[in-house]
């Protein structure tokens, strides 16, 4: 730096003849079939097969007739494909007194899931929005209490909630179960939304305030349109969680309004008559189909949601 007072030579800018360059040059070459790659992909393949095998057995078995199943060749593909078990599982399998198959439970689950998902996301998003942007007095205390709720085991609250629902006169109804799902979704969803809104630039919020938007104005016109991804993530979490729920369904509803999971259990675990493995398999697949579709349709967003749930600010 000291000797730049006098500059009396110009840098030569001629390119060196490219043939004259010796030794490593340009991008480093990569081998496709290196030992590292073989081990890596081999392991992934084995693990994937290990996970997919049960699903394969289920699909194959559900397409076989009972005589074929009795042969005991669990892994062999069906000699004669039949959809009889699927039809029976959906429409005529008996649980208790009802013999209308899983269809009853399916519609019950739909009627539980849709209002629970909408209600819990609506409330939790407003919670998260208020907690992250409108820091009111006691906001942190409120948030802590809510998060502690996420760590209390469900079993502890099971019976008290039975009493509460009974006193409210909604024990054994779908309304009661929707209420329970909404409340239990609150801690994790609020955390999710709070963290997401905390990552929204604060100046955006300030600008909206200067522009005269109020609490709901900012929520609906600014925050909601720019946070659709997190809403999708919350929806995935809730749909799969509520659809797969068994405990609350069996405790807070009565046989007529059992959700699909409870009904599936009753079909599979029935002790009377012959064990119809093919019907059981078909019923299980039908029940798992909704979360499966949701996962497949939204894989990327789901991963993003898990990352967004990481605690921030």
């Amino acid at each position, binding site marked *: *730096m*000291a*000797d*730049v*007072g*006098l500059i009396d030579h110009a840098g030569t800018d001629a390119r060196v003849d490219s043939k004259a360059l010796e030794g490593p040059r340009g991008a480093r070459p990569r081998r496709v079939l290196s030992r590292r790659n073989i081990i890596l992909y081999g392991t992934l393949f084995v693990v994937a097969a290990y996970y997919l095998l049960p699903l394969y057995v289920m699909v194959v078995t559900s397409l076989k007739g009972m005589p074929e199943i009795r042969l005991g060749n669990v892994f062999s593909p069906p000699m004669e494909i039949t959809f009889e078990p699927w039809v029976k599982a959906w429409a005529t399998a008996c649980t208790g007194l009802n013999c209308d198959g899983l269809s009853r439970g399916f519609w019950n689950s739909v009627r539980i899931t849709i209002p629970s998902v909408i209600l819990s996301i609506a409330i939790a998003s407003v919670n998260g929005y208020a907690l992250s942007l409108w820091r009111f007095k006691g906001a942190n205390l409120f948030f802590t209490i809510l998060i502690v709720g996420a760590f209390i085991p469900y079993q502890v609250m099971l019976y008290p909630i039975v009493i509460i629902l009974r006193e409210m006169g909604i024990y054994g109804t779908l309304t009661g179960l929707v209420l329970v799902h909404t409340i239990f979704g609150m801690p994790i969803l609020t955390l999710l939304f709070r963290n997401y809104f905390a990552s929204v*630039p604060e*100046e*955006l919020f*300030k*600008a*909206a*305030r*200067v*522009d*005269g*938007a109020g609490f709901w*104005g900012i929520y609906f*016109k*600014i925050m909601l*349109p*720019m946070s659709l991804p997190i809403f999708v993530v919350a929806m995935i979490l809730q749909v799969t969680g509520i659809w797969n729920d068994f405990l609350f369904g069996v405790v807070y509803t009565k046989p007529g309004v059992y959700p699909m999971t409870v009904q599936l259990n009753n079909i599979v675990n029935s002790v009377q008559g012959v064990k119809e493995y093919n019907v059981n398999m078909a019923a299980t697949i039908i029940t798992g189909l909704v979360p499966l579709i949701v996962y497949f349709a939204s894989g990327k967003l789901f991963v993003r949601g898990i990352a967004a749930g990481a605690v921030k600010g």
Partner: protein
Amino acid sequence: MASVSVKNLDLSFGDIKVLQNLNLEIDKGEFLVLLGSSGCGKSTLLNCIAGLLDITDGQIFISDRNVTWEQPKDRGIGMVFQSYALYPQMTVEGNLAFGLKNARVPKDEIEKRIARAAQLLHIEPLLKRKPAQLSGGQRQRVAIGRALVRDVDVFLFDEPLSNLDAKLRAELRVEIKRLHQRLENTTMIYVTHDQIEAMTLADRIAIMRAGAIQQLADPATIYNKPYNRYVAGFIGSPSINFIDGTIEVASDPVFKAGDTTIDLSRYAFSGNGPKPGAVTFGIRPEHIFMDKAATDEPFRADVEVDVVEPMGADTLVWSTLDGHELRFRVDGQTPLRKGDRVKVGFDPARASIFDAETEMRL
């Protein structure tokens, strides 16, 4: 008539006092710059004026109306942020209209105001675009437009140019100055840590440090007669040379540091005149001359060149005067290398002398 006045403002977050007993009067149509390093409370003060932060004590008046308890939207202000803060899902037009729609301004009036702002800021071709499709400079223009359409008396700028690259910053700086000249009677309060922005834009600069205003004056006074050592060191790039020493008063006052003696008879002492004691002598690099130019200066010395930093238009030379670092600025074409011995000189009348203990200007 005061456009904005801040009276005895206090702000604390818990036990931390961010602003303490702050008073500020801003005239109608004035361009005031709040200048300071990060964490000095300048943005906080702006947020208090905007009403985005609840203050602990004191009052805020805008256009002679006590707005201390009013919502930001009711204060008659427009605000521009560092990160632009445009609503990402709305078009430029939607961004400009948002505040007006909230205020239930009639539709044709909204269109009229948007057209005027767009024309003023040259963003007419961008009206249908989304913020993501704009460059940084265009975004900031839109953000200024959003404040402009509100038709307010007071503009608040929170480091609006800090996210832009150097070239754009210079362009927009001039544009903001033009805008202020065109909008007569519009008060602008501008927060920045960039002293060039402050010097070029401001009618008056308020230099802040640790939640208090150090000096509030026009740019020339701030530059030539800094009120204390902090202000002197903060303003000016390359920064002012400080030499620690003592004042001795014989027939004429002199400054002594080691073997160097500087005659201070030409220096305009404030208050009661010179008093003997420990002081810091400050002289700006651009007020020190070299070689021939130095011969007429009242104070002269020989120094050895230590480091040379050529910057194109001019060159900054680092040297030592009697063990004290001395930087001075010479023409960019001057040939100089490390080890050269040169004659330098300056006029003590242009210096600033500060009490070593209180750091106040003498």
